[in-house]
């Protein structure tokens, strides 16, 4: 039920009050719109059910939408026009798709640039976008051949060709381009060649099923715009990946131009054109009226004429802006959601949407630590952790308990995982089995480990300034004290914390991981080889079966087989409890009710991609003033 916001149900109870302009409308129109809202509310309800059952949604949902639209003669079809003004906390760093490195920029750039493949926000499946189809993969699983569609063009009207795709990978691989952190993710791509002007073949270093995802996700940049002198013409990807010294002059010239001159003027093939950016105030994108994908099947359509992202770094002022009508969309803080945005006036103008963010918080037990080497002790720790209570009191109910590392909307997610309840009795039994007893009567459990009497005493570390992690640590400390376990709590400055965690200097840590909305691959976190050399297996988890599964998983190109492997992997983690998985947090976003087609998507929240505003509710003139 988690994904359906309560505010949406209230659509049913007061469906007729959509916007301020309504009283001026003829009565007939009002009723029509009300009807549409009821239909939309029912749809979301249906969708919520789907989420719970973990089914693929799109198959049932899409016909549903069509039906609802057919039932409404007026405003049934999405129309263009109006602006969407949304809130951004700070300026994007820059808008060069390769050298920018922040979330704000990448969300803006995703409207301006397109890639060969795209992930469907509803089904989370890869589907062709600038490519005609998903790539042909050679038998050795090293070569990936993409054919481009012929009808796509950039925002200046020039067609998207294989040359542009080739240029994009060259720019990415170019060691002098100031994108060292993005480049890391393309290390495994060693060569690329054009077979004909619209066919490109990539070569990877090793067979790995996620290569397709990596290649399909490269933003395609117009060569004629980003490298007008064509400096990289004779430089090959293989040279850039290994040794480019022969053509250093050209590479240097290209990189200098690319690094310096494209920070604030992006141009791609996407549905929105970059219009302006006034530092500290707003970024404006304008719908490209000549967008190549307009009306094409399989391409997401856009209707809102302009997207303005207003930069307001004071979250309280942003909420006032929202209420004053200067913003149409804003992500709310938990307390703003609970205390400041209820009541008829707000709900008349705005609908609130709750959705899980794809990341989880966990307590990592150092598996190399003598106390936590024992599976039973780790299981007991999870039984001691009252996760439901934490979601309620620490997250204000804006969260959900998780039992494994896989995002719940992925097909790999295992529904059958056991969710450890809060059960101190069971935990104490497990500790007793493991040999923990208070033998010296000092009130703290102890046990003989490796010939020494060890008291059950350990430290929980987390990064200072994170109140959620602090509350979790304190709640657990409190619970453990009641049962004769002495846990101390320590907040560390982020850099120092990071250093301790990477060097395994901890008993227990509270941290978080992002969850993949793509096909997951947790090799980095759970494979035993990753415990050394500052890998992400900080807790030194070692299980030979998990190692085998993770290795095989990466080489498996059959999706069903992969799901099977991954479920077994989740099951092992579920039993061994190397982490105590805590929760995913939920975000709440308020959106003006004049927007239609707003829905919570499995890919992580709201995407204002195909939203639209009925003509009569449109608030801003369709023409963006020349700025």
């Amino acid at each position, binding site marked *: 039920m988690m994904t359906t916001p309560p505010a949406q149900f209230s659509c049913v109870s007061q469906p007729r009050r959509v916007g301020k302009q309504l009283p001026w409308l003829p009565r007939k129109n009002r009723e029509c719109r009300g009807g549409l809202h009821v239909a939309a509310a029912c749809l979301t309800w249906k969708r919520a059910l789907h989420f719970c059952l973990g089914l693929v949604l799109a198959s049932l949902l899409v016909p549903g939408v069509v039906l609802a639209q057919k039932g409404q003669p007026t405003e049934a079809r999405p129309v263009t026009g109006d602006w969407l003004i949304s809130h951004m906390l700070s300026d994007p760093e820059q808008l060069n798709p390769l050298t920018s490195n922040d979330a704000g920029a990448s969300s803006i750039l995703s409207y301006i640039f397109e890639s060969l493949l795209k992930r469907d926000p509803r089904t989370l499946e890869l589907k062709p976008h600038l490519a005609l189809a998903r790539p042909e993969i050679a038998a050795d699983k090293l070569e990936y051949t993409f054919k481009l569609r012929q009808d796509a063009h950039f925002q200046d009207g020039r067609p998207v060709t294989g040359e542009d795709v080739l240029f994009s990978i060259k720019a990415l691989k170019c060691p002098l381009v100031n994108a060292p952190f993005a480049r890391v993710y393309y290390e495994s791509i060693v060569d690329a060649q054009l077979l004909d002007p619209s066919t490109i073949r990539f070569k990877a270093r090793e067979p790995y099923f996620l290569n397709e995802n990596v290649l399909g996700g490269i933003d395609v940049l117009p060569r004629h715009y980003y490298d007008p002198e064509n400096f990289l013409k004779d430089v090959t990807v293989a040279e850039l990946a290994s040794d480019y010294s022969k053509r250093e002059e050209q590479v240097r010239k290209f990189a200098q131009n690319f690094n310096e001159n494209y920070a604030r003027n992006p141009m791609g093939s996407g549905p929105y054109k970059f219009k302006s950016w006034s530092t500290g105030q707003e970024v404006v994108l304008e719908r490209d009226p000549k967008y190549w994908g307009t009306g094409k099947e399989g391409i997401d359509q856009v209707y809102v004429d302009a997207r303005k992202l207003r930069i307001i770094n*004071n979250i309280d002022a942003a909420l006032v802006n929202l*209420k004053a009508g200067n913003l149409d969309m804003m992500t709310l803080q938990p307390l703003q959601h609970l205390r400041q945005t209820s009541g008829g006036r707000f709900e008349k103008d705005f609908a609130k949407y709750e959705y899980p963010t794809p990341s989880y918080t966990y307590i990592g037990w150092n598996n190399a630590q003598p106390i936590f080497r024992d599976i039973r002790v780790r299981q007991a720790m999870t039984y001691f952790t009252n996760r439901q209570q934490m979601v309620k009191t620490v997250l204000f109910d804006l969260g959900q308990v998780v039992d494994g590392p896989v995002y719940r909307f992925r097909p790999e997610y295992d529904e059958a995982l056991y969710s450890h309840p809060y059960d101190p009795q069971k935990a104490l039994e497990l500790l007793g089995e493991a040999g923990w007893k208070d033998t010296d009567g000092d009130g703290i459990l102890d046990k003989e480990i490796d010939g020494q009497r060890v008291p059950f005493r350990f430290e929980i570390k987390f990064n200072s300034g994170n109140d959620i992690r602090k509350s979790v640590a304190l709640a657990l400390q409190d619970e453990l004290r009641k049962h004769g376990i002495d846990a101390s709590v320590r907040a560390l400055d982020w850099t120092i914390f990071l250093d301790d965690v990477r060097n395994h200097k901890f008993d227990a840590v509270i941290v978080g991981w*992002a969850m993949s909305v793509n096909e997951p691959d947790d090799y980095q976190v759970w494979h035993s080889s990753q415990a050394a050399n500052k890998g992400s297996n900080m807790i030194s988890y070692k299980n030979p079966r998990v190692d085998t599964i993770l290795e095989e998983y990466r080489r498996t190109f059959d999706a069903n087989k992969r799901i099977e492997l991954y479920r077994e992997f989740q099951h092992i983690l579920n039993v061994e409890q190397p982490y105590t998985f805590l929760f995913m947090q939920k975000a709440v976003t308020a959106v003006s009710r004049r927007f239609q087609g707003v829905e919570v998507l499995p890919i992580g929240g709201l995407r204002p991609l195909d939203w639209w505003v009925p003509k009569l509710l449109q608030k801003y003139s369709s023409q963006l003033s020349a700025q």
Partner: protein
Amino acid sequence: MISYLIQRLLLMMPTFFGITLIAFLIIHLAPGDPAELRAGGGLAAGGEGGLSTQRRGAIDRALQEWRVQFGLDKPLHVQYLVWLKNLFTLNFGVSFKDNQPVWGKILERLPVTIKLEVWSTLLVYLVAIPLGIYSATHQYSFGDQLTTFGAFVLFALPSFWVGTMAIVFFGGGDFFYWVPPGGLYSVGYSPNWPWWQKLGDRAWHLLMPVLMLSYGGFAGLSRFMRSSMLENLRQDFVQVARSKGLAERLVIYKHVLRNSLIPIVTIMASIIPGLISGSVIIETLFSLPGLGQLSYDAVLARDYPIIMAVFTISSVLTLVSILLSDLLLSVVDPRIAFSRRTA
């Protein structure tokens, strides 16, 4: 006068280098690695479930690559010397964040900060000086006590709180919509508007921030003015003027006020550094892209070139303003002559 000026300027040099050296050391020794921050913290932002050992290695290499690019791999004293060398050509380098020249980023934000500071200073003087005069001429009266009390109450109210309250109550949320809740202009702002509409929109947006910036300054300046006036009122020449039979109005506004303004004029020079440092709190509250915000963000992101540039410029301005107030003093008060003092 000239030799005094040269002497003062020479004395400023070691002070200036001392300031930059200390600032440089503090900034670079503060915990937090700009490279790690650029890489997104590495742990929580490791992307899809963390970093493999191989990828960790690649990230470490990328971090090193990045440090070399910005010269952060060199020992600290070398970095300082490089920075000094660039300073002589007035080159503050490029921001870590977007590779753009620091100068450009500062100039972009300068107008907002200057506008805020100039208007709020003007307001402070316009309100505080008459207030001070009134208090001095009506010493110990009810009016004096009321204005003094009022000024001190305002002085004691923290601007972040008053500002937030102002936004919440007057910014168009659940209460009144008298002023915009931040920003420089309205959502529908268009350059095609007639000039008076554009001007009105801008002024409307600056109103609350300027008020918030100035109200705290009333107390200090009006008290200053009051004591200066009182001091002069007790002087012999005032008595002489009165005994000559001059009207009280003339005594106050011609003789006393002129002499009392001397210290006020000199402290005016101290406004100059404020022009660049800006106000972090007000700019953040009202989402105004000024220099205060820029330097605050730069500190959080450990964007050394920007921090150092803002710091250097404002310390130069501080030094200059101190010198300027000394010089101004001699201009408004002929009794002070530097040549004699320095001789």
